[in-house]
């Protein structure tokens, strides 16, 4: 982290805060917008979580008991769309908004008005998407991947789904442009690229992935829209097109998208582990290059999501080897995290606990991903619960755990109060145990052949499903504890110091807790000294 010398004169609270509802509606302030992003993400996390509870309730035992199959399929589809586009991505952008200006020594984001629009699109886009739950024909139910021809056969919800995706894409692209303009242009003097905190680095790379992949998704869903309403033949073999073509275009977006969900998490963990190990991050440069390599490779591996679709052999081989090569830079990162802790002076506050769990559990998800990358083996695993287990390990115990770690880590900075450490640890332990009870048995279900996206199953899968559902209910309920801890921390608590954590380094820790409305009104001077090494 950078050793920063900050001018003392900018800490006076002369900033005037707008008041009332206008403060939020018309905001051009990165902190207010970041807060709105985070609150929105949390609300969507519970909406998506409620859908997951419906899924686990129905799967608690074999047979159809609570919901009809069409609604069940809507739940799996909407759970994914809400969690990806409504919870994890906005939470990442919320952290970026709060932290990037503070970390690079800027007063705000480069394009504050655009920033406001990026946020406010989200509730409106989700109004379009969640409104489909009440439409004739039901909400989208063909899977979040929206494969034609199934999804084209959707009822009134279809155009709402397509336009919601367009709308969310506009928000993501504007947000990404803002991040890039901010980091490229608003860095304080002396804050060179190789002195940037790793969270900032992972976010620039994420922003590039967003700008390169979201428009491709917009193109894919536009083709679907014209296929349904204007008679084009992109995904119809009768006219010379191919439904598989949608899968190619979709996953050209979809694979970078999964790194959009995980790279900010890598950044968060790379900030937290050094703080609680009281050692600088091991291998800063290699972390930057590894992140960039992962992002670059993500554009050449998309067809590993469709090994069973009937591709030519050359395609299967290329995408298998390309996918496995991603394990190299990912391995570099995990090695560096472990080496950061090696012989460190470790303490185990809640952010550290979540980060440790991240390193271990994300690695499990990474290994099951490596298994899925092997084409001949994937023929058995494809579309089974093994895949479900895999991506929940990387997304829940990966992305979501890192986001929790990040919130606990920076919450005292944002609110000026310490959260309740005892409750935080309770939240961690209940979550970590229950999430493994929830997802680990799904590996076995998948290997035994249980398919995904089904409301009923053969009786031999009953026991593991029951265990998984019990874990799911505990995990779901225990997240309410997090809401309580956050509200309690916002309302009061032990006063936080500027540095908050004994081992924390970086510009954001030089500001008061809570920081002034505009972070750095005059730029701090960043010197080399111990920069991040």
């Amino acid at each position, binding site marked *: 982290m950078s050793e920063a010398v900050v001018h003392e004169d900018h800490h006076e609270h002369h900033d005037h805060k707008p008041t009332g509802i206008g403060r939020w509606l018309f905001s051009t302030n990165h902190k207010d917008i970041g807060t709105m992003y985070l609150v929105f993400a949390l609300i969507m996390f519970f909406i998506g979580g409620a859908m997951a509870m419906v899924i686990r309730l129905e799967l608690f035992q074999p047979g159809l008991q609570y919901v009809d199959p069409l609604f069940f399929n809507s739940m799996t589809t909407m759970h994914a769309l809400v969690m990806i586009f409504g919870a994890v991505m906005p939470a990442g952008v919320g952290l970026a908004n709060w932290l990037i200006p503070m970390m690079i020594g800027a007063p705000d984001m480069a394009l504050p008005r655009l920033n406001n629009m990026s946020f406010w699109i989200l509730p409106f886009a989700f109004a*379009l998407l969640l409104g489909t739950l009440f439409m004739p024909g039901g909400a989208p139910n063909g899977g979040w991947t929206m494969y034609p021809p199934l999804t084209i056969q959707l009822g009134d919800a279809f155009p709402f789904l397509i336009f919601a995706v367009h709308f969310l894409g506009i928000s993501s692209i504007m947000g990404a442009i803002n991040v890039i303009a901010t980091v490229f242009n608003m860095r304080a003097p002396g804050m060179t690229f190789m002195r940037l905190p790793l969270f900032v680095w992972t976010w620039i790379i994420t922003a590039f992935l967003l700008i390169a992949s979201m428009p491709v998704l917009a193109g894919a869903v536009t083709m679907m829209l014209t296929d349904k309403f204007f008679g084009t033949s992109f995904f119809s073999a009768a006219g010379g097109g191919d439904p598989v073509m949608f899968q190619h275009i979709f996953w050209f977006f979809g694979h970078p998208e999964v790194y959009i969900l995980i790279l900010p998490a890598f950044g968060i963990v790379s900030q937290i582990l050094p703080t609680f190990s009281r050692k600088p991050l091991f291998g800063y440069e290699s972390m930057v290059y590894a992140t960039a390599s992962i992002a670059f490779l993500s554009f050449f591996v998309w067809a590993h999501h469709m090994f069973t679709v009937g591709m030519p052999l050359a395609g299967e081989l290329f995408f298998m080897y390309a996918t496995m090569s991603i394990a190299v830079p990912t391995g570099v990162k995990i090695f560096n995290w472990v080496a950061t802790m090696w012989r460190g002076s470790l303490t185990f506050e809640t952010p550290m606990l979540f980060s440790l769990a991240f390193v271990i559990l994300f690695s499990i998800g990474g290994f099951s991903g490596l298994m899925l990358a092997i084409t001949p083996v994937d023929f058995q695993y494809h579309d089974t619960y093994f895949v479900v287990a895999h991506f929940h390990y990387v997304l829940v115990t990966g992305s979501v755990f890192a986001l929790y770690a990040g919130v606990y880590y920076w919450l005292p900075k944002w609110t000026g109060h310490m959260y309740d450490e005892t409750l935080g640890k309770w939240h961690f332990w209940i979550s970590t145990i229950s999430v493994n009870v929830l997802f680990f048995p799904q590996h076995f279900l998948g290997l035994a052949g249980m398919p995904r996206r089904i409301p009923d199953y053969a009786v031999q899968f009953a026991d593991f499903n029951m265990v998984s559902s019990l874990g799911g209910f505990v995990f779901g309920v225990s997240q309410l504890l997090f809401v309580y801890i956050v509200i309690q921390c916002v309302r009061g608590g032990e006063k936080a110091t500027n540095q908050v954590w004994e081992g924390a380094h970086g510009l954001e820790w030089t500001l008061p807790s809570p920081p002034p409305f505009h972070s750095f009104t005059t730029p701090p001077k960043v010197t080399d000294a111990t920069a991040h090494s």
Partner: protein
Amino acid sequence: MSDSHSTYFIPEPSRWPIVGTVALFIAFLGAAIMLNGSAFGTLILGFGFAAIVYMFAGWFADVIGESIAGKYNKQVDVSFRWGMAWFIFSEVMFFAAFFGALYYARVFSVPWLAGEGAKLITHELLWPEFIYEWPLMVIPDLEAFAASLYNEVIPAWGIPAINTAILLSSGLTVTFAHWALKKNNRSGLCWWLAATVLLGFIFVFMQASEYIHAYDELNMKLTSGIYGSTFFMLTGFHGFHVTMGAIMLLVILIRSIMGHFSALDHFAFEGVAWYWHFVDVVWLGLFIFVYWL
């Protein structure tokens, strides 16, 4: 322009982003209702479009006002530049999806339907008469597409070649306008810009007449299988972007006539010029891969 690091510019709270969000929401809502078969949706869509235009006018008026008032420093200028550059890159990727569809159809799906590679059985079972050629003259399922069969497509060396010349010339004229602006030659600026706008609209007019020709005389339509789909979606989105670009140029022309921009400070002009070069380059891709090869 002040020193980039002595002061920062942070805009005051603004109502335009939320106005724009609501406008887009109304437009999407209206379009979805319209596509589900209710004429009422068309009305909502129209209202949404009007609101979007209102938002653009208001937002840009604010920005132009701030710029003229001298509130912007070098740093703001650079932020705008990065913003515009990456916006254009996102547009490139949008077109890439459609070019990808074109290549996939030409290299994979259409030859496979004609029995190439390991897909012989598909060919035999589905449409055994289908043969591969590009431009695609036979649609695999002839019965289903009986209403939109065609014998001829738009040849590259007619209107498309003239349009290429028009668009490339407009790239030159906009550069001449830029040189004139940098030399503070205001009348040169306005005349070259006017020429660019004119060339832009001539291009759109020619493209429209080409579409009418394709529909009325060749019976080659959006619904004419994968050839019609890729042809009209690619050239259609491009034509839409040219129209937007020409309107942007027109705004810049009006601002130039009003005396806006200085030889050293004219980011709006440059941003629009970049955009214009972008539609130009996309056109070259279209000319080569859609019309020519």
